[in-house]
């Protein structure tokens, strides 16, 4: 190849005596164009790979939820693009760096264990009696059923008799008809960041599961287990089917209410109901929850507990410690008449009993609520909400002795597990207390740091119960139906009549919660505490007072809602937490990232700069970029490529730009090593140049002292900015052009950018793409600059993404004139944003700057 170029170079310099044949000249040109194409493809793959790495890094640090499909997808994208980069370099360098293919393979092998699905297989029995379950079998029966089984085995406490359909049973079902693969595919192809798509996905997945047939052996096992239960609990016994997902307690995460439970199910409907409960794994609430907490989909095997129904006189939830005061000695019992369901789903206010520990325990306080309705077993099937007579509505749901009995049970559970517990119980018709579940209590433990009690601010609304502490601010938004949830704006204050679990998917993007009903024992309160979203429940008149009230500040600690933004209260709130941190999905991403993102190859002139020393995909990317540039521009020039690469001049001045003509970018043959700007026929290059030169650059903006320090600190910590890194390419700026095409690679000061545009007569082929990264200041300033540029470009039809300090912008399909206009805007942006990052710390500077840039840009098209 070098020989060809030498020949071509000689020939163009005219040092060869014989003129070449037109055919030979054309062959050389075609070969050269091929190299340019390879280089362009390498750059495109390079940009795509960096884009993937940036998004992986962002996911690792940020607050946006992601699942295993994201991690796998990004790894596959990264590997495919890096392969493309290596392939194109191989073409450019005649296979000189093909050792990189091997390196890529090795790195891929290192990534693989982090992203491979854990295939559990079907190993155990499909069904297991509860009495045989225990914590040693948690992987087979799920945490909930395992702990119930343990209680029977070790404590002899009363639980309903029953059996569990195991994780093996679940996997048997999922493997039949390749159900799991189809579910995975649908999850990947949907855009899970959009709530409406998530809705559609959720219902499609549930539909798939309901439509799938149960394999025969699983069917038989379930029906046989039910017949054994009938022998124990009576013929035709109704059952409660409860989800018991494997790993649901692994993170101390509160899964309560995520999955469906069905009460009072007759024997002949167990099979269908089992499928419904498995399908509820893909309910919207549960999917969002797993996503925000980083729980891999395949890690959740849905075991289902099937227990004889307790026709409860009363029931509820008890905490062995007050969740808002976990170090205190109180046991909290929440109870209602009838089935405990109302307490769990927050349908109405329960009685709240505070019991002091001691010998004996003592009922310290009883808040008896009015409970005008209750849930009971329906004679036909399922359960029914029925009215209760007025004298019963105001009566306590439990006697003092029963409260103390429940409290003692909760305390026993805490002692047994060595951790505060959250138990669900029912009062059987014979007066006995039946334990329905016990799990670790999710504490909130922030009461001591509460905001000052009297702020003296105007108050919109006050009262209620603090279900999750803290202060939050946002626009009040009332949700009454599911469609309201779809319109729920990010960062708003959720206002609802009931603290219903169906609002839980919104909590990851909610500033605060205010509900008219509900208690701290409900599911929504649990999830709010987990997410650190302040929640105030049981506030009468909340809907009327807050709907349309605009921005409000919810002070859950002091049970008040203030109009507007109360900065003095918000200043006290803790930093938002990274919900993904410590989750299995986060760990998988971190594990994969370690082989993708770090950059170890820093100095291209060092002897270590070899394919063998590429330890990550980023190393390979960096290596290839450097080498491809050398192949194209340095080795090429030595080989006589200067015949193609010409320095740009403007009259008498030589500019720091070089131009490579791909075929018809000049207005005719250009002799020598220089090309004047007037000879450029490339539309996009002319437009770009117009933008670059329309307004003179005033030099670097004045940086305040902090901005300057930020630059120094940024420069010291950023290996890309080491002076030794500067390759020859770094100080040259290259245009590759043809009549309708232009690609500009440039490095201005500390920032690197690429502009590429196609602007011809066919709008469908036209596009503009722009990438911009780097800077010398600290990350917040660089990011702030990227956001400023993003704002400018979005107003001009670009699709823009900002990841950390990198900006990617693209637009397609506009006609020639409109495309060229956008290219000119980029020309302006390229020149006028250099070193802007230094000034970005200061709001007083950003505003006027933005205005000036808007004005300049408006002048461009005129």
């Amino acid at each position, binding site marked *: 190849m070098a020989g060809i170029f030498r020949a071509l170079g000689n020939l163009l310099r005219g040092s060869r005596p014989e003129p070449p044949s037109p055919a030979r000249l054309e062959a050389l040109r075609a070969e050269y164009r091929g190299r340019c194409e390879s280089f362009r493809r390498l750059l495109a793959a390079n940009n795509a790979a960096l884009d993937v790495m940036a998004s992986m890094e962002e996911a690792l640090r940020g607050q946006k939820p992601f699942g295993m499909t994201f991690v796998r*997808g990004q790894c596959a994208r990264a590997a*495919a693009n890096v392969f493309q980069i290596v*392939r194109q370099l191989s073409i450019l360098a005649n296979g000189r760096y093909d050792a990189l293919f091997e390196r890529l393979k090795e790195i891929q092998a290192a990534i693989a264990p982090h992203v491979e699905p854990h295939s559990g297989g079907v190993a155990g029995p499909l069904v297991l009696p509860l009495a045989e379950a225990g914590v040693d079998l948690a992987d087979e029966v799920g945490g909930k059923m395992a702990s119930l089984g343990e209680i029977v085995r070790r404590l002899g406490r009363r639980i309903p008799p029953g059996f569990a359909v195991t994780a093996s049973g679940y996997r048997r079902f999922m493997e039949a008809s390749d159900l799991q693969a189809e579910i995975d595919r649908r999850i990947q192809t949907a855009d899970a960041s959009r709530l409406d798509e998530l809705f559609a996905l959720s219902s499609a997945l549930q539909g798939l599961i309901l439509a799938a047939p149960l394999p025969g052996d699983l069917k038989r096992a379930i029906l046989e287990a039910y017949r054994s239960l009938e022998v124990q609990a009576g013929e035709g016994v109704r059952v409660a089917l409860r989800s018991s997902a494997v790993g649901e307690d692994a993170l101390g995460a509160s899964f309560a209410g995520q999955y469906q439970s069905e009460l009072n199910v007759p024997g002949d409907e167990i099979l269908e109901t089992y499928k419904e409960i498995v399908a509820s794994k893909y309910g919207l609430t549960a999917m969002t929850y797993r996503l925000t907490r980083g729980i891999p989909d395949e890690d959740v095997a849905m075991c289902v507990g099937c227990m004889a129904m307790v026709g409860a006189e009363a029931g509820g939830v008890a905490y062995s410690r007050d969740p808002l005061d976990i170090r205190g000695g109180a046991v909290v019992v929440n109870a209602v008449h009838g089935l405990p369901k109302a307490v769990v789903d927050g349908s109405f206010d329960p009685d709240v009993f505070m019991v002091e520990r001691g010998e004996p325990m003592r009922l310290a306080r009883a808040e008896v609520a009015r409970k005008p309705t209750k849930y009971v077993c329906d004679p036909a099937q399922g359960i029914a909400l029925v009215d209760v007579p007025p004298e019963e509505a105001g009566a306590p749901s439990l006697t003092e002795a029963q409260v103390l009995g429940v409290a003692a049970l909760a305390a026993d559970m805490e002692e047994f597990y060595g951790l505060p517990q959250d138990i669900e119980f029912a009062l059987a018709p014979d007066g006995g207390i039946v334990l329905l579940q016990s799990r670790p209590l999710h504490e909130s433990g922030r009461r001591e740091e509460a905001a000052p009690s009297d702020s003296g601010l105007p108050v919109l609304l006050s009262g209620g119960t603090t279900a999750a502490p803290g202060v939050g601010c946002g626009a009040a938004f009332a949700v009454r139906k599911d469609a309201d949830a779809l319109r729920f704006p990010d960062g708003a204050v959720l206002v609802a009549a009931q603290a219903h679990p169906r609002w839980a998917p919104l909590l990851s993007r909610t500033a605060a919660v205010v509900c008219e009903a509900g208690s701290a024992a409900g599911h929504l309160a649990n999830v709010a505490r987990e997410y650190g979203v302040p929640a105030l429940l049981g506030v009468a008149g909340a809907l009327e007072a807050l709907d349309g009230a605009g921005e409000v500040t919810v002070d859950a600690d002091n049970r008040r809602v203030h109009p507007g933004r109360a900065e003095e209260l918000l200043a006290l709130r803790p930093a938002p937490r990274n919900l993904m941190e410590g989750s299995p999905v986060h760990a998988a991403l971190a594990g994969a990232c370690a082989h993708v993102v770090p950059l170890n190859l820093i100095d291209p002139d060092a002897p270590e700069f070899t394919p063998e020393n590429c330890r990550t995909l980023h190393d390979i990317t960096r290596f290839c970029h450097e080498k491809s540039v050398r192949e194209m521009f340095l080795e090429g020039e030595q080989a006589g490529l200067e015949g193609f690469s010409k320095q740009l001049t403007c009259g008498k001045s030589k500019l720091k730009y070089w131009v490579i003509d791909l075929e018809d970018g000049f207005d005719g043959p250009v002799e020598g090593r220089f090309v004047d700007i007037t000879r450029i026929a490339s539309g996009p290059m002319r437009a770009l140049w117009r933008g670059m030169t329309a307004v003179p650059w005033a030099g670097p903006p004045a940086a305040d002292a902090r901005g300057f320090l930020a630059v120094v600190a940024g420069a010291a910590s950023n290996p890309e900015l080491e002076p030794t890194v500067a390759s020859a390419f770094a100080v040259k700026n290259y245009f590759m052009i043809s009549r309708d095409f232009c690609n500009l690679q440039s490095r201005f000061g500390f920032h690197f950018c690429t502009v590429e545009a196609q602007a011809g007569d066919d709008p469908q082929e036209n596009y503009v793409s722009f990438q911009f990264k780097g800077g010398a200041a600290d990350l917040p300033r660089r990011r702030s600059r990227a956001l400023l540029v993003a704002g400018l470009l979005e107003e001009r039809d670009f699709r823009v993404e900002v990841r950390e300090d990198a900006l990617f912008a693209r637009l397609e399909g506009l006609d020639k004139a409109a495309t060229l206009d956008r290219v000119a805007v980029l020309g302006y942006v390229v020149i006028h944003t250099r070193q802007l990052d230094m000034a970005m710390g200061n709001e007083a500077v950003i505003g006027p700057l933005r205005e000036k840039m808007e004005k300049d840009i408006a002048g461009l098209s005129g």
Partner: protein
Amino acid sequence: MHILLVDDETEFLELMTKRLDRRNFQVTTASTGEAALEALARIPVDVVVLDVRMPGMGGIETLRRLKAMAPDIEVILLTGHANMEVAVEGMELGAFDYLLKPVAINDLIFKIQDAAKKSGKLT
């Protein structure tokens, strides 16, 4: 330009055909690898867009045979099942690129045009 779309999901084929048709591409569809090979033998195809996971002959095997039949044909892999090993294997077998669903239609068209450019079908 003539595109062969291979995917076992008929909904996807219909949607893509409609969209590509609107952009003046000629589209032939196949819902299995076998059908894709037959189509390639019959029709002058410029670029193939191939799903990876299909019942019967999988995408990777289809790619292998397509390349054996017509080494110069450019094949873009487009899949709903992200898998790093398959991505690299496909690239090794000479796939032009590997894309994941969902893909923006403009990005796909851009990729198709670039593939056609490489195979000399578009200048």
